[in-house]
């Protein structure tokens, strides 16, 4: 048994362990890993996500139990202090001594803090570990109580600096980026792309200061500002230093390993240091006189070191390391590959720039116009994977290379099939998976679908950037084998949603169990059950009370389940119009049941913290006062938002509130493949944000303009114009047709915008169906919608009037006790759930 000691438990140190234990030779080795941080290795690349959920566990590369399972001895919170190369031992800070046969140094780097006067002041942080972030969070929280408009600066406008900028923005501080160079991301971007990025970042609220050399940090004890020159001062209350990294090579230096002039432990292409029993990988390794601060080369180094130790000596680090990178920075795509900056002597550049859309694309092409040498993409990096492959594999490019980056509408064309790539093309660089690996896995029968391919090859499990390409490869390969690629619902129903919809409707299937008996297999799951529930709701307008067992938990209890297992209650407030008496009723109910209240984005009021047994009591009171279910829990119509319109507004053209109320009442309770929302604005000022909805109406001279298929959320999209200057009656007719057509044909959980994206023929086709009735189904659609509207009833009223249906609103079957695990803590004169951890 040989001992391997890994010093450092970061991403690369972890990857070494992961790759090692996969080897059959691993049984002859015992691995001990030392990490100085108090927790096992975590994903530093996605560190800024910690601010969103503060869930350190979610970032873990693997839980502590994984190391146990694999027979790895993981020692956290204990730094290795010394290496003795003669006795082949290491000593930790706790004076414990361990001996090794092979030593792997993966100590990574530390943030570089420039020697600026005053940099030791309170409120100055670095951005590297979860502890750094926790320190920043605590400080920001304290700042905000003292000063609501507190500002934070980030020193350094590189990749990490901009991530840190997002972090401080998320903390609610006014963010400022201070960069010494004259552009952002000076290592990756040329000056024009950097300007485009700057415009985009400024548009979302980041303040950017370029060409600023910081002379000193101001303040007595804590930081109050940064001084760049005389009379050039930026007042800030917090500073995050992100001015580059320095390899943590002290250990190597002290035991006499060869190090570079500016730091880093020198390694050969076997990742061996000047001592053949000591390897160095990741950000401390100085390879070809370079430190590589990206995770993909670090993983490759880990792989090579593993191979070398188990005796696969032919595995070597390549001479040229690909530094191409694609990332999403504060929601902006940024990518660079190959040679992003290229001297004019070496080739020609083709540049597409559109500052109004914050788009920049540049490709560098060889002088003979035959090969792609590199490029930069800002704002839209969807072509990155393919361009990167073309570059890596020296593939032929079109005679007019501008086609590679021009938008399709401008004559640009996308590439041929992904199957044209050579087999050696590396598709997933994190896990080193080639196109050949993916395709062979399918052609040799090992995999039958995307899930199998991911499990077998590990492709997409790193950064996930290659996912679209892997999906295409899997689908194309399956097609080339003559296998049908079909979007089936799940393992229980081998049909698409639309097929199952038709089957249930034509065969007059009474319920889910019968549908499963007739057309499915097994016993169902959380994918097919709510989907079939939605189909039944459309075919027969049945409420969620009829088959509660197949409803999503929200629909089953006709309320939205929240953080601690309590529910929230949202009565319908059509068009957002509410009387003082109704407001008082809601207030009285909220007070009586001690509910947290908040105004929603859809112009109504949400009451949080109700226990399941309280729901019927609360609804009884609301219904008695004239309210009805708001269906906030359902995949159904949510609200039709309105502005005050010509009733009160001096600019209003039509009565937007009245029309919004009519429409909301028309489609209330209508179940659909996903939730949908509407908006009605009384003039083009568009105060109801109708173009951010699935359907939107804007009053114009001569009627309403009807927009469809917009949404907010994670992928915001403006609704597009379907028809202009319509009267009320025509609006309703088109809406009936449009909604019913969507409900019939959309896939499960597909909102109107992605549905339209995938619709063959797009908006023009939709216009033909809805306006010109090209399919001859307009009457059907209208009749079907009319049927559903006539059958509407409030499902909460239905539930509280039926003792059998009421049975389910109880926490325990065998006791009238309530859940005693619920704990609340006070917050701003109301309450919130107590966090478990």
């Amino acid at each position, binding site marked *: 048994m040989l001992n391997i000691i890994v010093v450092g438990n970061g991403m690369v140190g972890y990857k070494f362990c992961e790759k090692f234990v996969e080897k059959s030779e691993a049984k002859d080795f015992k691995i001990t890993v030392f990490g100085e941080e108090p927790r096992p290795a975590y994903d530093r690349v996605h560190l800024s996500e910690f601010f969103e959920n503060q869930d350190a566990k979610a970032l873990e590369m693997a839980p502590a139990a994984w190391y146990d399972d694999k027979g790895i001895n993981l020692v956290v919170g204990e730094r290795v202090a010394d290496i003795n190369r003669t006795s082949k031992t290491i000593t930790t800070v706790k004076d414990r001594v361990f001996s090794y046969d092979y030593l792997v140094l993966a100590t990574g780097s530390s943030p570089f803090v420039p020697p600026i006067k005053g940099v030791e002041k309170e409120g100055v942080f670095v951005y590297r570990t979860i502890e750094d972030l926790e320190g920043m969070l605590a400080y920001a929280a304290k700042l905000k109580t003292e000063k609501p408009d507190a500002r934070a600066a980030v020193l350094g406008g590189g990749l990490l600096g901009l991530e840190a900028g997002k972090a401080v923005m998320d903390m609610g501080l006014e963010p400022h980026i201070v960069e010494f160079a004259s552009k952002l991301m000076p290592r990756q971007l040329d000056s024009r792309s950097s300007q485009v990025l700057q415009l985009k970042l400024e548009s979302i609220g980041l303040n950017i200061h370029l060409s600023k050399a910081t002379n000193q940090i101001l303040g007595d004890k804590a930081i109050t500002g940064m001084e760049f020159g005389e009379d050039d001062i930026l007042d800030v209350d917090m500073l995050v230093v992100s001015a580059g990294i320095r390899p943590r090579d002290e250990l190597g230096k002290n035991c006499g390993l060869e190090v570079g002039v500016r730091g880093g432990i020198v390694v050969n292409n076997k990742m061996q240091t000047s001592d053949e029993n000591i390897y160095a990988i990741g950000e401390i390794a100085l390879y070809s006189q370079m430190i590589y601060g990206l995770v993909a080369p670090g993983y490759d180094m880990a792989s090579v070191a593993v191979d070398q130790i188990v005796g696969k000596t032919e595995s070597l680090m390549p001479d040229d390391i690909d530094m191409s990178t694609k990332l999403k920075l504060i929601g902006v795509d940024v990518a660079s590959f190959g040679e992003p900056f290229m001297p004019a002597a070496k080739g020609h550049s083709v540049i597409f720039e559109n500052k109004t859309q914050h788009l920049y694309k540049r490709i560098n092409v060889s002088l003979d116009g035959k090969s792609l040498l590199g490029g930069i993409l800002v704002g839209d990096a969807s072509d990155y994977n393919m361009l990167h492959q073309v570059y890596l594999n020296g593939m032929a490019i079109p005679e007019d290379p501008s086609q590679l980056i021009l938008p399709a509408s401008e004559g640009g064309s996308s590439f041929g099939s992904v199957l044209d790539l050579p087999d050696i093309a590396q598709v997933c660089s994190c896990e080193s998976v080639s196109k050949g690996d993916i395709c062979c896995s399918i052609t040799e029968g090992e995999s039958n679908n995307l899930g199998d391919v991911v499990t077998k090859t590990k492709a997409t499990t790193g950064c996930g950037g290659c996912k679209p390409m892997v999906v295409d490869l899997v689908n194309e390969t399956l097609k080339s084998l003559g296998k049908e690629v079909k979007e089936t619902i799940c*393992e229980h129903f081998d049909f698409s949603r639309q097929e199952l919809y038709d089957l249930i409707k034509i065969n007059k299937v009474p319920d889910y169990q019968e549908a499963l008996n007739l057309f499915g297999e097994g016993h*169902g*799951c*959380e994918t097919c059950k709510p989907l079939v529930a939605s189909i039944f709701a459309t075919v027969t307008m049945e409420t969620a009370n009829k088959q509660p067992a197949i409803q999503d*938990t929200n629909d089953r209890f006709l309320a939205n389940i929240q953080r601690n297992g309590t529910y929230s209650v949202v009565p319908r407030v059509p068009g957002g119009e509410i009387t003082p008496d109704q407001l008082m009723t809601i207030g009285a109910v909220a007070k009586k049941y001690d509910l947290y209240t908040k105004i929603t984005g859809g112009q109504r009021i949400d009451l949080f913290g109700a226990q399941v047994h309280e729901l019927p009591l609360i609804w009884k009171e609301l219904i008695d006062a004239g309210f009805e279910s708001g269906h906030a829990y359902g995949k159904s119509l949510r609200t039709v938002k309105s502005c005050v319109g010509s009733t009160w507004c001096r600019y209003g053209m039509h009565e937007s509130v009245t029309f919004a109320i009519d429409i909301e009442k028309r489609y209330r309770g209508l179940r659909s493949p996903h939730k949908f929302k509407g908006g009605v604005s009384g003039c083009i000022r568009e105060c109801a944000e109708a173009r951010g909805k699935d359907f939107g109406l804007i009053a114009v001279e001569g009627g309403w303009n009807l927009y469809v298929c917009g949404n907010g959320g994670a992928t915001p999209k403006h609704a597009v114009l379907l028809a202009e200057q319509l009267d009320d009656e025509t609006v309703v007719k088109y809406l009936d047709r449009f909604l019913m057509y969507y409900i019939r044909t959309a896939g499960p959980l597909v909102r109107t915008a992605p549905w339209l994206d995938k619709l063959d023929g797009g908006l023009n086709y939709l216009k033909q169906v809805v306006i010109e009735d090209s399919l001859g189904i307009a009457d059907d659609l209208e009749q079907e919608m009319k049927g559903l509207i006539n059958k509407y009833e409030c499902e909460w009223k239905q539930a509280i009037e039926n003792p059998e249906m009421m049975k389910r609103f109880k926490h325990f*079957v065998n006791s009238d006790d309530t*859940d005693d695990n619920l704990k609340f803590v006070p917050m701003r004169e109301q309450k919130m759930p107590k966090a478990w951890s």
Partner: protein
Amino acid sequence: MENILEQYKSVTENEVSTWFEVGVTANFPENSGACIKYKTKQVAVYNFTRTGKWYATQNLCPHKMEMVLSLGMIGDKDNIPKVACPMHKKNFSLEDGSNLGGEDLKIATYPVKIENGNVYIGFTD
């Protein structure tokens, strides 16, 4: 807060010292879960009417420590009966309590027996 999780340990049929009666079968919704109380424990009971099988597990989802598993949708995956937590759709096997997504989460399972139309859950305490 860890102790809340510690009181849930899987029980096999041989180990049962108390068969606790939790009511008649008709009280348990078909093809769904429901929650029962035993001393300080909350246990989710699942009634697979389609197969006539019954299962029981802790009601606590170990992912975010919420008392919610009885509210989850039940069904099967590759023929293993399972429940999907309503919070984040973590899937657990009702046979051995393991996480079907391969994550390091596990829930305790309890034996169920039906006698004379009554439902009993087996405990060791």
